[in-house]
């Protein structure tokens, strides 16, 4: 058991709370750097997808987990990023410039969505973003002169300073660097006043407002940042698949993203990546389990949907903090070993609070 006595505010907001953090996260980064040498090609590709979805998850986590604004149309931002990247790189723009443009354009679209969304909240916001997602998907499918319609559009491998990231190792490193940069950016944002304002808005809009937080500004900012991250992830996603069609950015993708952060653990940066791992590796686990199941169940396309639904229900019912919440409990158990008590993390029973007033 480690006790950290905090004696200053600086200490409270430090990124690495103690040496252990530096050690373990350093080890994680080393492991990720060594991954191309250790893993076969297929698993490396899966790991790249984990990083890409992790970046998108970070964005949605910022919006949903930290600002409390749920978006059911987040795949649209992913799509805006991917299509921008596809168009700019075919026009011969350098990778970093086009990636910034993809992020900026997604952020701009995010602001366009965020502004009207200021009027509505809760479930109405979810429905508004759902509507927005459908409209954007339809635009991708219909604006054939630009997006290629349902035929899709091809992407070239990214190029920086004349070096093309053609091999999957090179692209993996590119994604890794971008994912680390994004994670550090979000971590820093969260300990800055902006991030604290986001959390304040999530916990109570009224008290946040009374503390002098400009609701409209911060909500829009949250939408913009979240959309920008989704745009970056979309651009990388497009490069990884090298071919994008409108169906990849539909409502199912949006729900998958939400499912990912809820299962990973709402309101934690770890949760975004844990959720991404769940989303990518679950189908693999299911296909492994097919050998033990009878054919009529194992070969059915419904198995994956069923497992996703079941896992989601189990998590919301028994572990609302997701995989990361479970890890916190395991860690507490390890740290307190003989003294852990069952009721430690029991939620206080709260009865239904109504937003209605009649």
């Amino acid at each position, binding site marked *: 058991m480690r006790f950290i006595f905090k004696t200053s505010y600086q200490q409270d907001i430090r990124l690495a709370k103690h040496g252990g953090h530096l050690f373990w996260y350093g080890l994680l980064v080393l492991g990720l750097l060594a991954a191309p040498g250790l893993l076969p090609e297929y698993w490396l590709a899966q790991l790249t997808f984990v990083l890409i979805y992790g970046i998108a998850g970070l964005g949605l986590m910022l919006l949903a987990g930290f600002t409390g604004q749920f978006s059911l149309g987040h795949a649209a931002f992913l799509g805006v990023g991917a299509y921008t990247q596809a168009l700019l790189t075919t026009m011969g723009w350098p990778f970093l410039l086009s990636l910034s443009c993809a992020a900026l354009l997604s952020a701009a679209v995010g602001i366009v969505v965020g502004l009207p969304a200021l009027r509505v909240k809760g479930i109405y916001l979810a429905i508004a973003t*759902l509507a927005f997602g459908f409209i954007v998907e339809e635009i991708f499918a219909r604006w054939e002169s630009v997006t290629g319609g349902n035929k899709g559009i091809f992407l070239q491998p990214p190029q920086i300073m004349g070096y093309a990231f053609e091999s999957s190792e090179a692209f993996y490193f590119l994604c890794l660097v971008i994912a680390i940069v994004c994670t550090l950016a979000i971590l820093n944002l969260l300990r800055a006043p902006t991030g604290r304002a986001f959390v304040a808005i999530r916990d109570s809009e009224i008290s946040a407002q009374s503390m002098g937080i400009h609701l409209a500004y911060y909500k829009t900012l949250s939408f913009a940042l979240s959309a920008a991250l989704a745009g970056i992830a979309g651009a990388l996603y497009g490069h990884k698949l090298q071919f994008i069609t409108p169906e990849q950015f539909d409502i199912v993708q949006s729900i998958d993203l939400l499912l990912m952060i809820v299962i990973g653990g709402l309101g934690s940066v770890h949760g975004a990546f844990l959720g991404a791992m769940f989303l990518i590796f679950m189908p693999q686990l299911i296909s492994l389990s097919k050998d033990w199941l009878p054919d*009529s*169940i194992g070969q059915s396309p419904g198995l994956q949907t069923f497992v996703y639904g079941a896992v989601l229900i189990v998590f919301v019912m028994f572990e609302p903090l997701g995989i990361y919440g479970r890890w916190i409990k395991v860690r507490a158990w390890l740290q307190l070993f003989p003294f852990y008590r069952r009721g430690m993390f029991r939620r206080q029973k709260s009865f239904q609070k109504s*937003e209605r007033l009649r």
Partner: protein
Amino acid sequence: MQFVQLLISGVAQGCIYGLIALGFVLIYKATEIVSFAQGEFMMVGAFIGVAAMSWLGFPFWLAVIAAMLAMGLLGLLLERVVIRPVLGQPAFSIVMLTIGIGYLLRGLVTMIPGMGTETHTLDVPYKDATLQWGSLVVGAEQIAVILTTVLLCALLFAMFRYTRLGVAMQAASQNQLAAYYMGIPVQRINGMVWALAGMVAAIAGLLLAPITFVHANMGFIGLKAFPAAVVGGFGSLPGAIVGGLVIGSIESLSGFYLPEGFKDVAAYVVVLIMLMVRPNGLFGERLVKKV
């Protein structure tokens, strides 16, 4: 004539949206939960109808009753097992839970061997019949949809107005705490509301079956019912039907008069405009929150 023709098919489609939206609104009013599983409820109801007719050889009207009873039980069961333990958690967790229920039901239906992955037709007695007035041709399916919706609305109205259960549901949906103090078993009422929503969804599924087909992904039509509920005003029962009619008619008309592609998004454009102009919908009451 063309316009009237379009309007009738729009109204028929809108009745389906309205019935699904009715399910949301029932659940939302009673428990303040937005159920994303309503479209899947409808799909399961339609599948039970198909199974009852093709496997058990039930006649049509018996299959309808069987589907309604089964969906009522499913609603009751889901409320008891899954929803009740999580009441009091943040609203969005519960929304995710209903999305999970939707996934679960869709997966389960797809996993039924030899049935889940296929497209089925429901042999209704009024199949392929048409009515004709001058140049106006109306399918019997559409008339069945409209008539059943009208009948169902009347029944629901009578239930909420004249039966003890209906009045108790109204009371519980207006103020749960006060209803509880008045001796209304609020939790059991909530279960009843879920059962009622399941029955309405089963009817919607069986009405939709002759128009489209029965398949595992037909539940996605439930996403079109959100615009209906919002346009009518979330939490207003007549609003749900009116919203459905508005969405259905706009969709049908825009499919004909506007360029291709507008039909699929018309509902969502309408809901975005509605949320910007009048977030409470046509019939929604304005809620003022005091601090």
